[in-house]
Every structure is written in structure tokens, then in C-alpha cells.
């Protein structure tokens, strides 16, 4: 069995569909980097997997999501999908107050006046929205039910695994904890522009930060 076929099988067993061209060049690159080394197939698998975690799926364009997903009013995804996160945002609060909390955490005098009308609600819960891609299609996924392992500081370009069946409504994947697994990784080119702080700033048409602050 050729090396590329066995690596491909390994990835398939993890529900990851690869472009043959990218796979070949990745193996070739590995061999050039490690001349005269006797490596096992497991070593090669994990080397290629590490590269895939850092890959921008939009550079290889292997569609795995059903076409026109964003236009579907209601549909179910029944397979397993490994996708790339472009960025994440919290849609339960105004972007401006989120950005101020990041940019001026202590400096601002809290001039919210103490004796305002009491709030009806005990505080709204976080709802993260992830913008995802399979490399071809862009799609949104919302934290329909709380997903504790998902954090606002997840790195742009991270790879995630979504396991169906899961509902898609109006182009939103309605995520619950059971659907989501974080695989890790990042995409260097979008680390800065898609950092949490800069996504907020861009949406508000405010200047972006070349050294964005890490959020918790």
C-alpha cells in the first residue's frame, strides 16, 4: 500500500477529507525535510495531521458540506464534519461594550449610575456564534445550548469536529455540547485580523489592534 493511501485512510478514519494534491505534496515535503530517516507510518500520519491543523482549508477547497447550506431554512446534517473556525463572537451582548471591556478594563470610571431601574433579567447568558468553513462554503454555528468547552479565546483557524445529526436553521448550525469537539490548530494569516478584539472593532468600524488583547 502506498504511503499516501495509508495516510488518506488514517484521515478518513478521523472523518477528514483531504485533497489528494495537498496530501501528496505534504508527504513529499516531509520526506525532503527528513532525508535518510526511517520513519514509521504512524509518525508520518501525525506529521501530516499537524500540518493539516495549521492548514487554511480555503487554500485547498475540498467541499464537504451540502451545497447552499446557508440558504436552507431547515435541514439536518447527519454525518461527521471537520471544519475550520474563521472567528467567533458573542451575540448575546452589544459589541461595543464587549470591546470596551477588552480595551479599557480598569481605566473607565464606572459611571453607570447606581439607582437605575432594576433589570428584569438576572443577566443574559452567553451565546457564541462561530463562523466556520469547509474551505468552500462559509457557515455559521450558534451555541444553541451552553457548550462549556467552547471559549471566546479559541484561535482563529482552529479545526473543529461536528458530529450529526444536528439541525441547521436559516443557515445556522444549532450546536449543543454533544455535537462539538475541538481539534486544535490555527491559521497564522488570520490570527491577528480575526482575533476577538479585531472582529468586534471591524464590525463597529473602529481601528483594529495589530497586537490584539487576549480574551478569556
Amino acid at each position: 500500500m502506498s504511503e499516501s493511501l495509508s495516510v488518506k485512510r488514517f484521515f478518513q478514519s478521523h472523518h477528514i477529507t483531504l485533497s489528494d494534491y495537498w496530501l501528496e505534496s505534504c508527504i513529499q515535503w516531509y520526506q525532503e525535510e527528513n532525508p535518510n530517516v526511517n520513519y514509521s507510518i504512524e509518525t508520518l500520519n501525525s506529521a501530516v495531521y499537524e500540518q493539516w491543523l495549521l492548514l487554511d482549508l480555503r487554500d485547498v477547497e475540498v467541499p464537504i458540506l451540502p451545497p447552499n447550506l446557508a440558504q436552507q431554512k431547515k435541514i439536518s446534517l447527519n454525518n461527521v464534519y471537520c471544519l475550520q473556525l474563521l472567528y467567533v463572537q458573542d451575540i448575546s451582548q452589544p459589541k461595543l461594550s464587549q470591546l470596551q471591556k477588552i480595551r479599557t478594563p480598569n481605566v473607565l470610571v464606572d459611571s453607570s449610575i447606581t439607582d437605575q431601574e432594576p433589570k428584569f433579567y438576572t443577566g443574559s447568558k452567553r451565546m457564541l456564534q462561530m463562523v466556520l468553513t469547509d474551505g468552500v462554503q462559509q457557515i455559521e454555528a450558534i451555541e444553541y445550548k451552553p457548550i462549556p468547552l467552547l471559549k471566546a479565546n479559541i484561535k482563529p483557524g482552529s479545526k473543529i469536529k461536528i458530529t450529526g445529526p444536528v439541525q441547521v436553521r436559516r443557515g445556522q448550525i444549532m450546536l449543543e455540547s454533544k455535537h462539538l469537539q475541538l481539534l486544535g490548530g490555527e491559521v497564522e494569516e488570520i490570527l491577528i485580523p480575526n482575533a476577538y478584539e479585531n472582529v468586534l472593532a471591524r464590525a463597529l468600524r473602529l481601528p483594529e489592534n495589530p497586537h490584539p488583547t487576549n480574551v478569556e
Partner: protein
Amino acid sequence: MHLFCYLNVIKTSVRILCTNQAKPIMKYLNVAEKNDAAKNIAALLSRGASTRREGLSNYNKIYEFDTTIFGQPARMVMTSVSGHLLNYEFVTTYRAWQSCHPVALFDAPVVKQCPANYDNIKRTLEREIRQCQGLIIWTDCDREGENIGFEVIKVCTDIKPNIPVYRAKFSEITAASVFRALNTLGQPNKNISDAVDVRQELDLRTGAAFTRLQTLRFQKVFPDKLSDKLISYGSCQFPTLGFVVERYNAIEEFVPEDFWRIKMNHTMKDLTVDFNWKRDRLFDKNACEAILDICQENPQATVEEVESKSKSKWRPLPLDTVELEKTASRKLRINAKDTMKIAEKLYTQGLISYPRTETNIFPRELNLVPLVEQQTVDNRWGPFAQRVLNEGGPNPRQGRKSDQAHPPIHPTKYANNLNGNEQRIYEYIVRHFLACVSKDAMGHETVVHVDIADEKFLAKGLFILERNYLDVYTYDRWNAKEIHEYRVGETFMPSNLSLAESTTSPPKLLTEADLIALMEKYGIGTDATHAEHIETIKTREYVGLHENIYFVPGTLGMGLVEGYNRIGLEVSLAKPNLRADFEKDLKLICDGHKNPETVRREQIEKYRAVFGIVTERILEIDDSLGNRLEDRPRPLENEAIPQ
């Protein structure tokens, strides 16, 4: 100490007795803070039998009467000052603006002296004390009053070094209170007076140094805009201005954002109950619609929980100064400065207790019954006062703050001859008093939790059982809200289940009440001075009023604050930190926990260091000012202050 003075007094008077062969009548000089106070205290102590004569100052009369002190008959001479009698000033060589570099003002010698227009008052005291064998201080019982007392003592002991001195302590100008003060004369409190001295000296040095720096420089840098402008600085004014600018900037920088929510209600028998979505709102239309779709596919609502509980609306806490200022500003639309002026007048007339207090706990020994009884004759709130008595009251709600000097503000006498704002403030103080000694309003609240396709909604109903304090406290509202009777497990179809769109709105400009709340929260000034500082930034035109209610910064005020903030927020004169630290130290001096000289030295050093940073980086303030004034800074030599 007390007894010793007393014996001294006797000895002196015995000598007088021997020479004059008359009754041993001791003569005491009594000094109040204002003429009105002197007049009313004299009237009460003499039971209306005092005689009046002129002093050297037209405004400060002298009242004489007989009374008994320490069990002995005594002749009382009662007069007054007009607030502070002495002032800190730099020695003459530093007074001219060009006489020195402003930084020298942190060390320049200062003297405490009597300004020319108060010289008549001082000379009255000097003349009268010669005839007296004792001095009794009747100035207001607060920090400033204690310091004014020591100013009087200084003037009098310069003439008669060993004269015994006593302090009368009172919180209201009523017969009971002034007689109690006279029967329990104590000693003035040096710590409190020392704190005021340190504050005054620091205010003089920092005020003069930064005012000269700002004025001398910015007049030259912006000759077209500021050439004849005094650009004053005050360590309370600037943080106060800072609050106004900060809020204004928050509004300027505000970006509105659309949001959506799921609206649900249930109409039955002409009553519509609105339910609120527990997620409240989402800032993404698609996401909100997606969830609405889920609800609309299975719209039947199931009642999951019905909470039923008694709910009370609390009567107000006993009234302190900050609360008085805030409520008068909010509900009566009378600003803090006017409110305090009126309150002081009501106090000197004996109608209310001392209006400068931080206390919101009624002391146990204060009998509230007669105070409530006095009000029963009124046809507006009299029946309520009667009800308080009939229902086993008064029963004050108690706060947690006490300044150990004055009780909460309360009416001391019934009045029905007041007009205009005086009447409105008096009425508010009476209604507040009656409210805080009555009972909380009682109600019954129902909270219904329902589920639609896993989304949670809730509605609240309120049934008012007893209005209690709300019957007299017309400034509060509590609205009943009808709701259907729901049972757990019951289901219903929503009458409306739809998407509602809305937009976030910017914060509001600050009102005076907001500004006072911020000053209190961040320790700028004291309850006695909030109104003054707000007034100062208005007079300096650092801020103006929009629609007569909302504070907006002027361009000069904006530029200054932004400039100082740019230099560094920790050292910014427009931020509350520096002043708040200072106020904390002053409190420590009052309580005897910190030496006034130490505080004085440390605080001077702190502000001198800030002065250094400001002069080094003054170009940044030029720049910020230029932005706001829309003027290009005139380049100057390297010196911060042009020669």
C-alpha cells in the same frame, strides 16, 4: 480638664466679687457661625428675653441675656462670624503671578490671616472678649465649623491667653437642643480642625500652582481663544469635570447596534400578559429567527413553575445630605446649591435639624414621638402622621452610616408659613421623615415560568396589599401588574409569538443627581462640598447645562481633561484617584489616626511630582486643547511657562 477650667473660672470671678462687692456674675462670649444662628440660639436660651446691640460689623449683631452655667448665674454675650474668619494666603512676595515659578508655590511660606472685609468681625471679638471670663463656641458641628471655632479661639486667646474655652454641641436649633448643649459643654476637637487646615493649605498650593501654570501657558499658546481667560484648577473641580467629560465622550463614541428578541404574550378575558424571553435579546437576526422558527413549529406553552411570594417596597432610609441633594434635584428640580442654601435657612430658623450629615441612623436617645406629633396638625400629611402614631410607630428604618455628629435630617418644628422652594424642600423633608418612620409597602408577587419548545419565558404580576409609606411619600411609585392565575402543568397557546427589533441607545448625559452620586462613590469632596464644586465648574464655563438638566462639557473643559488623561491616567488631575486618597488621609487625621504634618508633607510631595510630570509633557495638553478649541498651538520656547 473640664473641672480644672471650671475652678479657674470660679477663682477669677471671686476676685471680681471682692473688688466690686457685687453678685459673682460670670460673663461669657458666645460665638456662632452666622448671625441668624446667633440670633435664634440667643432667643431660645433667653426664652425671647435677649437684648440686641450693634457690633462693629453691620451683619453680625450682639445679643445679651442671662442664664445659668455650671449651676451659676451667668451673663451671655452672643455674636457671630460669617463662616471662616481667617484664610491661608501666601506671604506677600509670592502673591504676584510673575513673582515666582508656580512650582515654588509648593514650598512658599503661607500665613493664616483675616481678610480685610472680615476685619470688623475680628475686632468685635477682640473688643468683647476683654469683658468676658469664658468663651463658648457655637459654630456648626461639622468639620468646617470646628475649624471656624479654632479661628475664633485664636483671635480671642491672642487677647486673653488663658481664657477658658468650651464647645457647645448641637444638631438643631431648638430649645431642647441648645439647652442640652449648654448643660453638656465640652472641648473643641483639634484633630478635626487640623484636617481642615491641611485641606485648606493643600487647596491653596495646588490650586494656585496649577492655575498659574495653566493660565500663563495657555493664554500664550492660544492667544486668539484664551488670551484673557483665567484657567483655574481645583483638586475637586477637575475630577468632577472629568466625570462630565467621560460621559460625554462615551456618548460621542457610542455606536448603535441592532438587536432582536422573541416577543410572546397571552391574552385572555381582555387581559394581555407579556412574557419576557429569558435570553433577553440577540444581536444577530438570523440566530433569533432560527430560534423563533423552532418555537413556532411547536408553539404550545407549558407552565413549568409558579412562584408566589410576598414582596415589599422599602420605605426610604433616614435622610442624609447626599440623598437630600439627589432627590431635590431629581424630583423637585431644585439644584444642590439652592437646596443646601434653603436647607441651611430652614435649619437656622429651627425648622429642621442640621442639614449637613452623613448619618442615616436615628440615635436611640432621640425621641421621635413628639417630632411626629408636631406634624399631625397639617391637613396634607397630618392624618398620615397620626396613623404612624396609632399604628405603634414611629419605627425608623435604619441605615448603616453615622458621622457621630449629627442625626439624619428631620423636621424639628411644624411650619405652615413657608412659600415657594422653601416650602417644597420643607415638605419633602417632612414627608421623607414620616415615610422612613412608618412601614414598608406590602405586596404580593407572582412569577410564572413557561416553556415553548425548550425556550424559557417568564412573566411577573404584582398585587399591592398595603401602600403604607407610599401614602405620604409621593415621590415614589409602585405599580400593580395584573396577571392570570396559572397552574403548573397547564398549557396555553400564545396570542402572539413574533420577532421584535430594536437598537441600543447611548447612555444619557449626567444629571446633577448622577454627578453627586459619582462624587460620593469616588470620594470627591464631602457631602458638605459637592454642591460647591459643581457650581465652580459651571461658573468657570468648563461645563454647561443642556435642557437645564444635563451636564455637557465646554470645549476648554474637554481639551483640558483629554490632555491630562493623555499624560497618564494614574496621575491625571481629571481622574478621582489623587483627590480620593487625600480625602482618606483627612478622615484619618479627624479620627486621630494620622499626624496632620505627615499628611501635609506627603500630599504636597504627591502633587509636586504630578506638577513635574505635567510641565514635562505639557505639549500633549497643548495638542489636546488645540483639537477641541480648533486652534493651532502657538509654538513656545522649551519653557513650560513663557517669561
